[in-house]
């Protein structure tokens, strides 16, 4: 009986510690957990981007994207497959964790057969006419925002942390973001983007499944309420840890207009 009591006390203590730890997690701690969750050393993604205007007319873009981690930095390359007017366009990006360092970006334009160095700081520009800015698409360093844990609540029957993130830079297009983080997989499943006038757009992330042992979102819907426009991102084919070669993330590779 004494052993049972000791075991009960131990289990209760462990639960209490875990609960305390969870309570002590700050908004920043949670966003660091999200940032540092396992997303593989490299990845290959076949992506379909569907732009839907207020009349329901659709425009479709298909992109093959590769990325690879180099410590806290990363390199990525995207080659556009469709539509025909951008087919073969290559976008190479070297992204740095250090806030003080601008990302390096190059754009290959197949019609001109020329690579152009582009500015690394147009984060607020929309990507290919979609509702995603470059900043929405890329990995934002957690320390670029001030995070506050607002509450814990269930979303679609999944326990979530709800975080308010306020950009530290003054020229950011968002005044704040409210982010729902699914606690079990440490992934954002919903984001509300606000500007000074109120809610701009809502991102819903769904179809989260494990691929090669890594939790992966297969669909994202960005609903731009202000402009009555939507963008759907479908991740049709995702592979991780393919041991991608370094020479894929070079200017000489995008100059060919396609990757092996």
């Amino acid at each position, binding site marked *: 009986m004494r052993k049972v009591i000791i075991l009960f006390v131990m289990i209760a203590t462990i639960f209490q510690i875990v609960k305390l730890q969870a309570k002590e997690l700050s908004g920043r701690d949670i966003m660091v957990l999200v940032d540092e969750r396992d997303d593989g050393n490299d990845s290959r993604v076949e992506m379909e981007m569907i732009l839907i205007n207020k009349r329901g007319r659709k425009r479709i873009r298909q992109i093959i994207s590769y990325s690879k981690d180099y410590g806290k930095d990363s390199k990525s390359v995207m080659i556009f497959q469709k539509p025909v007017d951008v087919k073969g366009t290559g976008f190479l990006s070297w992204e*740095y964790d250090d806030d003080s360092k601008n990302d390096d970006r190059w754009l290959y334009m197949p*019609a001109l057969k020329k690579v152009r*160095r582009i500015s690394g700081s147009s984060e607020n520009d929309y990507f290919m006419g979609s509702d995603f800015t470059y900043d929405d698409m890329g990995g934002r360093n957690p320390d670029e925002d001030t995070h506050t844990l607002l509450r814990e609540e269930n979303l679609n029957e999944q326990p979530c942390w709800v975080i308010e993130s306020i950009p530290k830079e003054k020229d950011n297009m968002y005044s704040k973001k409210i982010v729902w983080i699914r606690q079990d997989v440490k992934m954002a499943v919903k984001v509300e983007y606000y500007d000074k006038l109120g809610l701009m757009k809502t991102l819903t992330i769904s179809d989260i499944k494990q691929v090669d042992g890594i939790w992966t979102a297969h669909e994202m819907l960005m609903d731009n309420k202000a402009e009555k426009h939507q963008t759907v991102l479908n991740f049709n084919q995702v592979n991780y840890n393919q041991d991608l070669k370094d*020479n894929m993330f*070079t*200017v000489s590779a995008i100059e*060919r207009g396609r990757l092996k």
Partner: protein
Amino acid sequence: MKQLFLMIGLFGTFLYLSASDLEFTGFTDTYHAVRLKGQHEFNASRTRFRGEIFYQIEDASLFTSFNAINNNILEDETGIELREAFMEYVASKWDVRVGRQIITWGKADGMQITDIICPGDYTEFITRDFDDIRIPVESVKFRWLPGFADFEIIWLPFFKASVLPSGNNPWKISQEYNTDNEIVFKQTIEPENKLENSEIAGKISFYLSGIDFAFSGFYTWDDLPIIHEQTVNDTTYLQPEHHRLKYLGMEMNKPIGNFVFRSEIAFYQNKFFRNLSTEDKTDKKNLLKAMLGLDWYPGDDWDFSFQFADDLILKYDEDLESDENNSVATLNISKKILRQTLGFSNMLYYGFNEKDIYDQIAMDYALTDELHLFCGMDIFAGNDGYFGKFKNNSQIWFKVKYGF
């Protein structure tokens, strides 16, 4: 008849490719330009079908593109032409591309400072798209890619000259010769197709964090001929001839915040110029060309690009027909709206020597992703100079392009 067979062959190829694993893409475009002045004659009126075939087996690939053109103004251009046809092999640390291909060097837009591998097609001056101005060259391009830099060697076994407007082309500029003699225009002397007349180029490029730069060299021929004069009795013979040219160049890109600084510098050794005091009216001089550019990406789909370029003839002789310094500036402003389906651009060239202008104002509307409608104006102003001499050719134009 030969072209009819070619068309049938191409159509058959198209049907075959549609049903095979080969990739077949391309576009059709139709472009028409009317002069703003005078009787509003057509400066250009052409329709083109471009087919592109790509086939890949593992590390090797084949690419071919061809044009079928109907030109209502320049009938010589009507027909079928092979544009590019090359094979490529890509290894982990090197690649090689052999065949007829377009090779682009340099950081400048709409200016040839270091971008001199492909000669220019100036049939419609520089009003055509940049990709239509470059003439593909038969060549072997080998690149060694060890990671820290890209090393490139290009061998061009056959010389190809730039194309200048001729015949009844509205863009033809007649050269005036101040003489009472009878003038006899001889056929242009081009290098023979011999190994020793090959051209060879090399380039080392570095793409680093925060900066790109490259060094290049080219043992080439001048794509534009110089005219040697010879007077015998009362006859002046004009002999256009291409000459050997040596080139060394450097280019650089440096992004800072929302800006990208671009620069190019090139040294041309022994370039021929017209010199009125010499016996054959030509002279060899060294030429220095340089360009400084600044791109600004303020966001919201605005792009601004400014360039300043200067040509300087070294050890200048007052009797040279060309100015010692020739400076040109460009300003390109573009903006996209309606989710990047409607684009506006304005590319302005200004020649400092003659105070002449070329301004291209253009609009591009994507009716669908496949179908684009373009319209615009090319405005030339000034009395002389590179742009001013086309002051009567200011035009309004439209283009429709369907890609597949």
